[in-house]
């Protein structure tokens, strides 16, 4: 069996280089075809009718007029949609229509007549006292004696914070093109994060053998955790195709529906009490948190976050169900919210102690699982943002424009998912690498190519990476930052397994045994002896007419022993903002992200991930918020106009420091997508506090909230 471990840092030739992504040119030129770009022959378009009320019962439903419209090929009602059915949120799926054009399909859904009985709804959760029986206590967790410790504390913080629901807002909305052809063969082009698992889920929804479903997703325009399942509209699109004689049906959500029902990040609110000694040592934590992710309630709030080992703690949580669109995983589920709640409270505690929050975070680093790492990262981030010169006592300064700096921290797992890879060495010297994986825009395709090239001693140009189809060996869905660990391990092992077979074929010609050979610079040679070598092409010719096909597999339970990938990433982010105290408008000056993620395959695409995560943090700290109307129960801003995202001029300077060093590298590959998307919101909110000396308890930090928090306080 080959030795799979990674070559030492200083011996790597391709991994560790700053390489641009392979698909950059086709994406930039618009030649990359996303599922929503596909228009196969005979295409039909679909449109979806959704509920106009947040809570209502269907009294009657009549599709006759819609069916009669010329151009309509089929109409499907979603599961259970019939008289007596109760919708639980505005935007809930009711009917899907296929037609010869999108216009006809839209006219058709407007022609469906439904008589409703409107029922009472609850759509707001900022005020726990107002949600009544919609709040369900999740049970109390107690450590030590929090009441005694809080009672005896030198300094006490008692405060409240909140972070509202935001949406995934995928640039390419959810949807697919699908054709249910004769013999129950299905061609399926979903925009998905789960190439190898989505067919099986669709199969169970529509009763067709999973093996009959051919999934293709070469590119996809954003998922952030919301694009794993085939979704009810995927299944109904398939049925529309079948009922339309097998013609392909295209259905992608419109923007309003995308922002209303295709995934939200839950809200989290918390009342927090912290007790500390005069020197800043935290002795107790008490929190009452609540959250909502739609009709199914809300997830637990993982606080205290990172600083988890507070000796005395009481934690209570309530799950609130609302008549609003359902939650889906959102890049590091519940972590950004928990980081915001915890780091805001710690920063406010520091103010009560008249202490620099950086000193407080350092002082209590022993409450984290990785004291040395966080301490180092806090120091590095402070250096990069010039904390020493930029930090001032909260609210200290002159003039109406105030600047401030703040801190947020992150932790994540990120161990590799189950992944299989097949490496094919052809007798003509060409190489193919196949995985049923997907590239969400992260650079996955590029990283797979780098690992294969490094392992085979070939340039990347000699390797064809094939992903995006479920006919390739199964690789896990891209969730939990597990992809890079999984695919790099399976690719490494498959490459070395294939190489071993090649060595066996070549060894006699070089007068040695397979275990004495190595692949270097497109040659096969006796280890350390370039004089006893042959070119890759010559070597390939020795294999005979059949290609070498070898598998490699990442088995998560074995990963720790093998050492190729592991889990546990830490990060610290700091932000500098400028607040116009007359208008309450906050502008980003700078953001700094220090991030470890073990062995970094490609620092450039890794940094690019972190840049994107910082921008997402800016969006949720300053702009993003789903606005829902109490009376009508409708989302009022399911658009790109009042559901605000940052633009280039809004993001300021971003400095990314990948914590690449031997000590982290030795741990193996760790996922990155999520850990870097956690700390930024807290850092920005805390920077605003530092600028103003007044806490804005809710994000996004908008003008109204800043001016409300300032009250009559004026700066000059």
């Amino acid at each position, binding site marked *: 069996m080959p030795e799979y471990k990674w070559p030492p840092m200083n011996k790597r030739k391709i991994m560790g280089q700053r390489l641009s992504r392979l698909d950059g040119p086709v994406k930039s030129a618009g030649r990359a075809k996303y599922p929503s770009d596909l228009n196969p022959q005979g295409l039909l378009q679909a449109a979806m009718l959704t509920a106009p009320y947040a809570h209502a019962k269907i009294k009657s439903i009549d599709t006759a007029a819609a069916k009669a419209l010329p151009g309509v090929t089929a109409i499907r009602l979603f599961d259970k949609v019939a008289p007596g059915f109760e919708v639980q949120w505005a935007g809930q799926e009711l009917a899907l229509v296929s037609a010869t054009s999108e*216009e006809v399909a*839209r*006219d058709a859904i*407007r022609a469906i007549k439904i008589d409703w009985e*409107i029922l009472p709804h609850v759509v707001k959760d900022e005020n726990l006292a107002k949600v009544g029986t919609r709040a369900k206590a999740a049970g109390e967790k107690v450590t030590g004696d929090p009441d005694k410790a809080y009672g005896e504390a030198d300094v006490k913080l008692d405060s409240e914070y909140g972070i509202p629901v935001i949406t995934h807002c995928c640039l390419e909305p959810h949807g697919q093109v699908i054709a249910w052809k004769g013999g129950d063969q299905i061609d399926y082009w979903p925009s998905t994060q789960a190439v190898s698992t989505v067919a099986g889920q669709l199969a169970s929804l529509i009763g067709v053998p999973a093996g009959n479903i051919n999934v293709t997703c070469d590119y996809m325009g954003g998922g952030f955790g919301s694009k794993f399942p085939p979704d009810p509209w995927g299944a109904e699109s398939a049925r529309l195709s079948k009922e339309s004689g097998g013609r392909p049906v295209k259905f992608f959500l419109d923007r309003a529906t995308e922002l209303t029902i295709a995934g939200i990040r839950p809200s989290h609110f918390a009342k927090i009490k912290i007790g500390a000694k005069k020197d800043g040592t935290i002795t107790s934590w008490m929190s009452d948190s609540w959250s909502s992710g739609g009709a199914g309630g809300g997830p637990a709030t993982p606080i205290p976050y990172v600083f988890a080992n507070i000796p005395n703690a009481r934690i209570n949580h309530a799950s609130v169900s609302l008549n609003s669109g359902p939650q889906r995983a959102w890049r590091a589920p519940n972590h950004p919210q928990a980081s915001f709640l915890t780091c805001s409270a710690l920063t406010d505690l520091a103010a009560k102690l008249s202490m620099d929050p950086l000193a407080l975070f350092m002082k209590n680093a022993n409450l984290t699982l990785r004291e040395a790492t966080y301490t180092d990262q806090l120091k590095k981030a402070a250096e990069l943002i010039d904390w020493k010169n930029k930090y001032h006592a909260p609210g200290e300064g002159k003039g109406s424009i105030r600047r401030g700096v703040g801190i947020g921290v992150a932790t994540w797992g990120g161990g590799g998912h189950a992944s299989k890879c097949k490496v094919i060495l052809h007798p003509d010297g060409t190489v193919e690498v196949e995985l049923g994986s997907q590239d969400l825009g992260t650079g996955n395709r590029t990283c797979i190519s780098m690992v294969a090239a490094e392992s085979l001693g070939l340039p990347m140009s000699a390797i064809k990476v094939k992903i995006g189809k479920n006919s390739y060996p199964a690789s896990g869905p891209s969730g939990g930052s597990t992809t890079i660990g999984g695919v790099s391990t399976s690719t490494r092992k498959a490459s070395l397994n294939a190489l071993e077979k090649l060595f066996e074929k070549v060894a006699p010609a070089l007068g040695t045994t397979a275990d004495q050979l190595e692949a270097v610079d497109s040659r096969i040679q006796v280890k350390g002896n370039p004089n006893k070598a042959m070119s890759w092409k010559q070597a390939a010719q020795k294999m005979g007419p059949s290609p070498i096909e070898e598998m490699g597999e990442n088995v998560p339970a074995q990963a720790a022993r093998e050492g190729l990938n592991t889990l546990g990433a830490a990060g610290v982010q700091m932000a500098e903002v400028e607040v116009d105290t*007359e*208008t*309450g*408008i906050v502008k980003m000056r700078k953001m700094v992200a220090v991030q470890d993620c073990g062995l970094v395959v490609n620092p450039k695409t890794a940094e690019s991930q972190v840049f994107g995560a910082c921008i997402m943090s800016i969006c949720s700290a*300053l*702009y993003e918020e789903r*606005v*829902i*109307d*109490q*009376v*009508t129960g*409708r989302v*009022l*801003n399911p*658009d790109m*106009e*009042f559901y*605000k*995202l*940052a*633009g*280039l*001029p*809004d993001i300021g300077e971003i400095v990314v420091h990948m914590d690449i060093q031997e000590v982290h590298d030795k741990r193996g590959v760790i996922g990155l997508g999520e850990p870097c998307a956690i700390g930024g919101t807290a850092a920005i909110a805390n920077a605003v506090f530092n600028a103003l000396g007044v806490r804005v308890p809710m994000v996004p930090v*908008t*003008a*109204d909230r800043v*001016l*409300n928090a300032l009250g009559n306080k004026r700066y000059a």
Partner: protein
Amino acid sequence: MQSFEYANPATLKEAFAALGSSWEDAAVLAGGTDLLSIMKDYVQSPKRVVNIKGIKELGGISRKGGSMRIGATTTLDELTSNAAIRSSYPGLVQAAMGVTSPQLRNMGTVAGDLCQRPRCWYFRRGFGLLAKGPNGEALVPTGENKFHAIFSNGPAYFVSASTLGPALVALGASVTIASASGNRSVSVEKFFVAPTGDGQREIDLKPNEIVTEILIPVPATKNATYEVRQRELVDWPLSAASVALRMNGNTVTSASIALGHVAPTIWRATQAEKMLVGKTITAETADAAGEAAVANATPLSGNKYKVQLTKVAVKRALLAAAGIKA
């Protein structure tokens, strides 16, 4: 979007023939930056769309008597690139540059800016311009009103979406409106109206009429516009103020102050205008004018902050017009 007929007239006469007597009959298309999206959302579903961009006489910027004439289909980009406009009406250029999307400035027209529909999220989601709930109740006063009017006692609570409106009102501009039966002129200030009942529009324009030009008096003023916007990326102002000052040396002889995004119309701050006469613009007088401008504000449950923003916008616009750094 409902299917529609498309008319592409080359003359005003042909255009009038294509228009109808009700808003459902026909809609005028110029830049299309608002009309197409509102049609896609089924908020407006005209049977016919009349493109006026092919009518040559509706374009161009030129001197006309004692006024500067801006043709209706002049794009915001043409407006902001025009040397005469830039030198005499910086407040108008600043307002147009507040549309921070080059794409919108390239397509959007000057008359289209005045005629665009309000962005009220209740209106855009199909609850009508007066935003009524299932039982006919007004949704805005107790609902999500942080972007709504601070100068209105109802029943309309939306804010005018016009970006150029405040600058044009401050500059004393008028619009020329044409129909088959002839031309009429109305001040930009009077062009905006707050509807009081269902079915009324927010501008003084009939379905069979077309705005043909905007006329701005030439006499020189010191003018400026200041917008408070959350994002630098294209975003609607939270509040905007345009000012035009006639000066005798450093003394204000008359002031015109118009506010945008705070009322269903462009709101004239007459108290602030009066108090500035005979004064010199300083940080103190500008601040006092800001206070006076919002003295009669009647904010809703969630938009009290806009009172403060408006006060600041007036102050900063005055200081900019006077060339004083804030």
